[in-house]
C-alpha cells in the first residue's frame, strides 16, 4: 500500500488497478467544494468512559437524530392535539373547583351559578381561540404572543409577553403536577404523605420523555389524553341523559366538604367576578399551539389553526358539561385532600370504586400530569426563539441529540420542581400565581394582531381586526379582574417577576449586541497579511521531555524564544542553567528568582517587562506563552499534575496581545523521543561530547 493506494492485479496483465483508501469516509461526507458534513461517527466519544456514557444516554434518551430527521419529528394533528392541548383540556379538571370554592361563600344555592360562569368562560375561550387561529396563520414561525407583540407593539411588549408566558409555563408544570398528585391521593389517601416526592418523580419522568424528542413524547402521551377526553364526554353524555330522563341521584356529601359560612355572603358582582377569575384558569395553555406552529407537519399554520379549534371545542364542551352535570347532581367544594369536583361527578355517574370510575380518575391524573408536557414543548421553543433573537443565552437555541431544546427542558424542570418543594405540592397555594401571566399574553397578542391587520390589510382584515379587538378588550378586562382578585393571594409576585425578567432579557441583549459590535468586520474589509512580530515565552519547571516538546513547538512559532524558570532555589537554578546550556543550547534560559515563592506574579511581571522593553516605534508583538503539560491518564493523575500550568493559564487569560498555547505531552510520545535519542546516540557516540548540529533540535 502506497499512501493509501493499494495495487490489485487484474485478470489480464494490463488491467491492474489501484484501490484508493478514503480516510474521510467513516467520519465525513463531501457535499460540495470544500464542504463536508460530519457523520455520526465524528461525534462519537473516543474514550471508554465517554463511550459508556453515550450508551447510557442512548438507552435513556434514544439514539441521536440528524438535523434532516427534524421533519420526521414534526407532529400530525392527532399527536399535536394531546401534546399542545393537554394543558388546556386538563384545566377542566380543576377550573370547576376554583369556581365553586368562591361561590360556596354565597351558600349552596349559589353553586348553580357555576353553569353561567362556565358558559361565560367558554365564550371568552371562543374569542381567544379564534384570535389565536389568526396568530397561527399570521406567524407560522411560532412565538405566539411574543412574536406578535414584538413586531406590532414594541420590543418591550414582546418581552413582557414572553416573561408572562415563562411564568405561566413554570406554573403549569408545578400546578398540573401537584394537581395530578392530588387526584392520585383522592383515590389512595395514603399517598398524601409522599406527595412532594411523587411530584418530583413525575417531573423527572416527563423531563426524560421530552429529552427523547417531540414525536416520541407524542406517542407516550396520546393514549391517556384521548382516554380522558373519551371518558369525560361519556360521563357528561350519561349525566345529561339522566337529567333528561329525571333519574338524577344526588351525590352523597363528600368528606372534607367546605360548608357555606354563616351568615353567607350576598351574590354580588365582585363575588361573581372572583368566581370568574378563578375559573379562568381553564384558558391557560390555549396559546401553546400558537407558540409551537413550526412543530406541526406542513401545512403548519393550517394544521395548527385546526388543532386550535378542535381543542377549544373539546375544552368548552367538557368544561360546561361538568358544570351542568355537577350542578344537577349537587357537587360541592372540598378541602385539600377531599374529592375534586370532577371526581364527585364521576362518582355520581360511574359509581364509586367501579372500574370506569378508577379508569376515569387514572386518566384525569394522567392528563393533569401530561398538561405539564404542553409547557415542556412550549417553554423550550419560546426560549429558543428568544435566544435566537439575543434575549436569552444562546444555549437555549441549541438542539440536543434528539432535536429537543435540552436547555429549556432542563431549566423548566428545575424551576418547577423547586416551586413544588417550596409550596409542598399544595395546588391552592400555587394557583394564585397562575393565570395572570396568561391574560397578559392574551391581551398583548390581541392588541398586536389588531395593529397587524391594520398594517397588513389582507382579505377580510376588517372583521379579523374586529375579532381581535373584542378579544383584546375581553381579555384585558379579565386580566384586571384576575390580577386584582388574586393580587393579595400571590399574584403580586407575578407583577414583580415580569419586570425583573424583562430587565434580564434586555441586559443579555445589550451584552450580545455589544460583543457583536466589537467583533464585527466591515463587509468591504479585506484581511491583510499579518505584520506583527511574534515572540515566545516558555515557562519551564525544569528540563524534561514535556519541556523539550514545548520548546520545539515554540521554535516553530518564532525564532524569538526564551524559556523562563521561576524558582525560589538559586542552587536549582544554577544546576538547570548548566544543563540547559549543554542540552538546549539554542534557546535562551531566563531564571527568575522568586524569594516570595510566587509563580504567576513573577511570570506576569516578566511579560510586562518584555512589553515595556519593546521598541515604541514598532507595533507591539504577539506573545505566545507556550505551556508544557503532562496529559493525565486518569482522574487521580489530574490532581497530581499540571496545577501550576492551570494557575498560569488562569492569570494569563485576557492579557492583551497574549496567546496561551498548551503543549500536551502524551504517554504515546516517549516512543518518538526514544527513537530520536537513539538516532542522536548513533550520530554522537559517548566519547564525543559535541553539541548537536546547529539548527537541529536536540530531541524531538
Amino acid at each position, binding site marked *: 500500500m502506497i499512501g493509501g493506494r493499494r*495495487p490489485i492485479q487484474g*485478470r489480464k496483465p494490463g*488491467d491492474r488497478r*489501484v484501490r484508493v483508501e*478514503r480516510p474521510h469516509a467513516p467520519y465525513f461526507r463531501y*457535499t*460540495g467544494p470544500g464542504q463536508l458534513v460530519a457523520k455520526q461517527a465524528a461525534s462519537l466519544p473516543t474514550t471508554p468512559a465517554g463511550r459508556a456514557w453515550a450508551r447510557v444516554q442512548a438507552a435513556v434518551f434514544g439514539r441521536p437524530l440528524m438535523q434532516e430527521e427534524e421533519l420526521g419529528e414534526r407532529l400530525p394533528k392527532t399527536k399535536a392535539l394531546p401534546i399542545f392541548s393537554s394543558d388546556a383540556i386538563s384545566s377542566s379538571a380543576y377550573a370547576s373547583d376554583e369556581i365553586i370554592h368562591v361561590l360556596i361563600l354565597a351558600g349552596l344555592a349559589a353553586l348553580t351559578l357555576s353553569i353561567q360562569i362556565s358558559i361565560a368562560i367558554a365564550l371568552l375561550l371562543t374569542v381567544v381561540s379564534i384570535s389565536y387561529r389568526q396568530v397561527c396563520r399570521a406567524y407560522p414561525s411560532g412565538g405566539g404572543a411574543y412574536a406578535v407583540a414584538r413586531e406590532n407593539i414594541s420590543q418591550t411588549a414582546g418581552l413582557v409577553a414572553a416573561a408572562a408566558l415563562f411564568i405561566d409555563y413554570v406554573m403549569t408544570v408545578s400546578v398540573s403536577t401537584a394537581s395530578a398528585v392530588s387526584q392520585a391521593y383522592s383515590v389512595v389517601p395514603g399517598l398524601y404523605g409522599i406527595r412532594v416526592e411523587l411530584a418530583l418523580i413525575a417531573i423527572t419522568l416527563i423531563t426524560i420523555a421530552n429529552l427523547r424528542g417531540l414525536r416520541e413524547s407524542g406517542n407516550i402521551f396520546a393514549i391517556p389524553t384521548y382516554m380522558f377526553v373519551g371518558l369525560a364526554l361519556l360521563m357528561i353524555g350519561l349525566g345529561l341523559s339522566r337529567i333528561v330522563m329525571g333519574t338524577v341521584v344526588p351525590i352523597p356529601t363528600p368528606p372534607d366538604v367546605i360548608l357555606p359560612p354563616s351568615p353567607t355572603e350576598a351574590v354580588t358582582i365582585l363575588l361573581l367576578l372572583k368566581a370568574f377569575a378563578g375559573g379562568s384558569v381553564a384558558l391557560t395553555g390555549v396559546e401553546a399551539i400558537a407558540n409551537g406552529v413550526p412543530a406541526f407537519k406542513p401545512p403548519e399554520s393550517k394544521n395548527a389553526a385546526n388543532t386550535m379549534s378542535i381543542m377549544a371545542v373539546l375544552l368548552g364542551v367538557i368544561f360546561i358539561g361538568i358544570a351542568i352535570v355537577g350542578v344537577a347532581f349537587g357537587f360541592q367544594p372540598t378541602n385539600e385532600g377531599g374529592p375534586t369536583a370532577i371526581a364527585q361527578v364521576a362518582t355520581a355517574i360511574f359509581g364509586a370504586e367501579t372500574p370506569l370510575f378508577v379508569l376515569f380518575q387514572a386518566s384525569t391524573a394522567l392528563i393533569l400530569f401530561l398538561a405539564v408536557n404542553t409547557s415542556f414543548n412550549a417553554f423550550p421553543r419560546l426560549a429558543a426563539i428568544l435566544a435566537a433573537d439575543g434575549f436569552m443565552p444562546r444555549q437555549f437555541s441549541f438542539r440536543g441529540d434528539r432535536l429537543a431544546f435540552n436547555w429549556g427542558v432542563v431549566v423548566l424542570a428545575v424551576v418547577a420542581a423547586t416551586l413544588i418543594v417550596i409550596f409542598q405540592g399544595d395546588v391552592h397555594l400555587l394557583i394564585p400565581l397562575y393565570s395572570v401571566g396568561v391574560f397578559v399574553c392574551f391581551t398583548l397578542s390581541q392588541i398586536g394582531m389588531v395593529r397587524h391587520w391594520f398594517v397588513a390589510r389582507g382579505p377580510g382584515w376588517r372583521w379579523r381586526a374586529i375579532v381581535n379587538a373584542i378579544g383584546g378588550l375581553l381579555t384585558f378586562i379579565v386580566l384586571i379582574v384576575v390580577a386584582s382578585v388574586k393580587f393579595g393571594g400571590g399574584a403580586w409576585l407575578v407583577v414583580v417577576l415580569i419586570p425583573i425578567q424583562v430587565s434580564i432579557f434586555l441586559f443579555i441583549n445589550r451584552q450580545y449586541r455589544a460583543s457583536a459590535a466589537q467583533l464585527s468586520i466591515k463587509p468591504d474589509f479585506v484581511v491583510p497579511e499579518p505584520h506583527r512580530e511574534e515572540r515566545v515565552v516558555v515557562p519551564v519547571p525544569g528540563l524534561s521531555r514535556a519541556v523539550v516538546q514545548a520548546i520545539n513547538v515554540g521554535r516553530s512559532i518564532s525564532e524569538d524564544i526564551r524559556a523562563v524558570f521561576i524558582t525560589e532555589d538559586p542552587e536549582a537554578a544554577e544546576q538547570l542553567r548548566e544543563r540547559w546550556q549543554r542540552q538546549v543550547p539554542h534557546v535562551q534560559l531566563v531564571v527568575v528568582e522568586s524569594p516570595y515563592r510566587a509563580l504567576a506574579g513573577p511570570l506576569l511581571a516578566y511579560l510586562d517587562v518584555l512589553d515595556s522593553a519593546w521598541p515604541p516605534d514598532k507595533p507591539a508583538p504577539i506573545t505566545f506563552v507556550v505551556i508544557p503539560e503532562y496529559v493525565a491518564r486518569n482522574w487521580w493523575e489530574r490532581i497530581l499534575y499540571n496545577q501550576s500550568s492551570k494557575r498560569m493559564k488562569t492569570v494569563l487569560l485576557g492579557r492583551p496581545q497574549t496567546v496561551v498555547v498548551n503543549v500536551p505531552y502524551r504517554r504515546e510520545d516517549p516512543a518518538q523521543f526514544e527513537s530520536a535519542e537513539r538516532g542522536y546516540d548513533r550520530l554522537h557516540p559517548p566519547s564525543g561530547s559535541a553539541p548537536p548540529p546547529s539548527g537541529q533540535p536536540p530531541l524531538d
Partner: protein
Amino acid sequence: MSDHHVPVFRRAIIALNGGPSDARIVRLVADMARGSKAELVAVHVVEIDWTLPLDADIAGQSEDVQRILDMAEQVAEESKLILEPVLLQARDVGAAIVDESTERGADLLVVGLPYRKRFGGEFALGRTIPYILQNAPCAVWVVRDPIAEEKP
C-alpha cells in the same frame, strides 16, 4: 411462474460515472434491494493516463471524486441500506469494473448510460459499456438517461 420471494440479486455492483444518472441508479437499486437486504457496492473508477504512474495521487486528492461515492452512500442510507463505496484508479474503466465485480462475486452489475450523441448525430454507447456487456460474468443492467429535449 416467477417466485417473488427470491431476491433478484444478493450482491450488486453499481458503477458510477459521476454524471446526473448516478443518484437515479443508486436509488433504483436501493429500492430493489430493500426487501432482500442485498449487499450494495458502489464503484467509481478514475482513469489514469499512461503518462502517469497507476498509483499517482489523483483520486484521493479530488473532492469531486469523493463526492460521487459520498452521494451514493447517502442515497443508500436514505433507504436504510448500507452501501460500500469503492474508489479505484485504472488504465481502463471497463476492465476495472468487471474485475472488481468478479472478485467480489457480484450477481448484478448496474451501469448508467448518459444519452449522448456523436457529432454526426448518432447515439453513442461509448466503449466501457460494450466491454462490460461482453466480459462481465454476472447479470448487467444498463440504465439509460432519458433523452433530453432538443433545443430549438
